């Protein structure tokens, strides 16, 4: 029945020959069955040869060659399966034979060429089972060779999954020379030729700083504040802090912010060498290359401390200072300084003594951890 395109072609052939071979009677049967469509793409072939021969040394060959080719050209393929199943079985029933060879070679290849970059899953499974059974005491050679390779061109999400599993078993009951060698060799070669896209934003910012060639600019409060789009730093005030009007003489007051003032201690102006300390929480680190990196969070505390020494206080003032210090120890008090500025804070060194330098002359020193505040009468 000749193949017709588009139709299912079924071919069966049954040949049976009864005739003389080498002068003796030989019975040969051959059965061939071909099932496949008429376009020649997919073909299933079964061949069964059975030879019935008399007691004679003859050579019998049984060669089966199959080719399964599946070519699919399409824009998009959802599921593509190409299975090739082969079973080769050689059974010889005879009183005597010299040599038996059963060679089973299988080569399977799955090659996918994508026109577009589409993520697909490729699965290529090659399963081989080989078994050689013999009851007589002869040499047995059972060799199973597997070779598996994976080649890919795109490699983005992890490495390709390549699994090569070996299972070899030799079971003998009576043998003279026993040898069982299981050799593994697996080689994974990465040939990566990938193009990585690297992006880097180019940020352009601007800033402006200027300087006025003004007379006595190194004496006055004259910061030249330009402009910058750096949000990390707030520029200093452009104007000098003004003393509060009508704030009065230097004194300690309590409470610092609430009114009315319930306790007050009038002092003289402090002596020279008073200190104004600015202490910051700041992290200084040095890199391996020797670069100094300094960091400070804007929320971290900034401590300002005034160290003041008052000399020439009377005994009454000195005693009043100790009473004031005792009554408001650890509480926030206010300080009107000698420049007419107002501070609120705490006195942090109550242990410093009040010293009686001479008759009716006392000296008081305290550290005032303070922050600038607004005076409210």
């Amino acid at each position, binding site marked *: 029945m000749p193949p017709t395109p588009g139709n299912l072609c079924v071919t069966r052939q049954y040949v049976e020959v009864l005739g003389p071979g080498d002068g003796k009677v030989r019975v040969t049967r051959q059965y061939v069955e071909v099932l496949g469509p008429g376009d020649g793409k997919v073909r299933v072939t079964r061949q069964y040869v059975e030879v019935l021969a008399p007691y004679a040394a003859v050579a019998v060959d049984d060669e089966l060659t199959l080719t399964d080719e599946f070519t699919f050209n399409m824009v998009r393929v959802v599921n593509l399966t190409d299975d090739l199943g082969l079973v080769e079985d050689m059974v010889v029933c005879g009183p005597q034979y010299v040599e038996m060879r059963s060679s089973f070679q299988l080569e399977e290849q799955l090659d996918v060429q994508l026109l577009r970059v589409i993520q697909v899953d490729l699965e290529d499974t090659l399963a081989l089972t080989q078994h050689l059974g013999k009851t007589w005491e002869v040499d047995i050679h059972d060799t199973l060779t597997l070779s598996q390779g994976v080649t890919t061109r795109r490699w983005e999400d992890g490495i390709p999954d390549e699994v090569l599993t070996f299972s070899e078993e030799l079971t003998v009951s009576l043998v003279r020379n026993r040898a069982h060698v299981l050799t593994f060799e697996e080689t994974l070669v990465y040939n990566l030729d990938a193009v990585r896209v690297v992006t880097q934003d180019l940020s352009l910012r601007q*800033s402006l700083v200027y300087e006025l060639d003004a007379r006595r600019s190194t004496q*006055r*409060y004259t910061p030249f504040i330009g402009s*910058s789009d750096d949000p990390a730093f707030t520029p*200093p005030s452009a104007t000098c802090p003004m003393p509060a009007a009508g704030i009065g003489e230097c004194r300690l007051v309590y409470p610092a912010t609430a009114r009315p003032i319930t306790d007050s201690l009038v002092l003289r102006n402090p002596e020279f*060498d008073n200190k104004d300390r600015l202490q*910051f929480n700041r992290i200084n680190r040095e890199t391996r290359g020797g670069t100094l990196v300094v960091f400070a969070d804007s929320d971290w505390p900034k401590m300002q401390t005034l160290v003041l020494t008052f000399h020439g206080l009377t005994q009454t003032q000195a005693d009043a200072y100790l009473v004031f210090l005792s009554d408001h120890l650890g509480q926030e008090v206010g300080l009107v300084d000698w420049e007419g500025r107002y501070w609120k804070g705490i006195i942090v060194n109550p242990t410093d003594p009040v010293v009686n330098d001479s008759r009716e002359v006392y000296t008081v020193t305290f550290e005032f951890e303070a922050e600038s505040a607004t005076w409210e009468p």
Partner: protein
Amino acid sequence: MFRLEAPYPRLQTLTLLPNPQFSDAEALPDTVTRKYAMDGTRYTYVKRRWGRHKLKWTFKLMRNKGLELRAFFLAYFAARIRVTDHRGRVWIGNFTNNPFEFSTAQRAAPAITPVLRGELQTIDIEFEGVAQ
């Protein structure tokens, strides 16, 4: 003239200071560790800071300028600073003082408005930076 500019590199504020007092100092922060082998051979291990210098200046400022420098410290104590020193050299680095301590040493008339009294303040600035 002594110039402090900050924050580097996007400079925003410039403060002019008078030249510092004598006894200004400049040093290397590099370190040398010396080891001796059992046979007397001397080995030295050097840790360099690759061009970074430690500098210290002392300034005497009018009270007004002291207030300006105080505000500058409050704003840029952790920022990178560009310093143009009294020799015209330009340095990029950071203040390393902690604390910054202004000491009012003496009178210095006249008072400049709005400060009520003319006073002179002394401040030490410690700085580590790289010359440009």
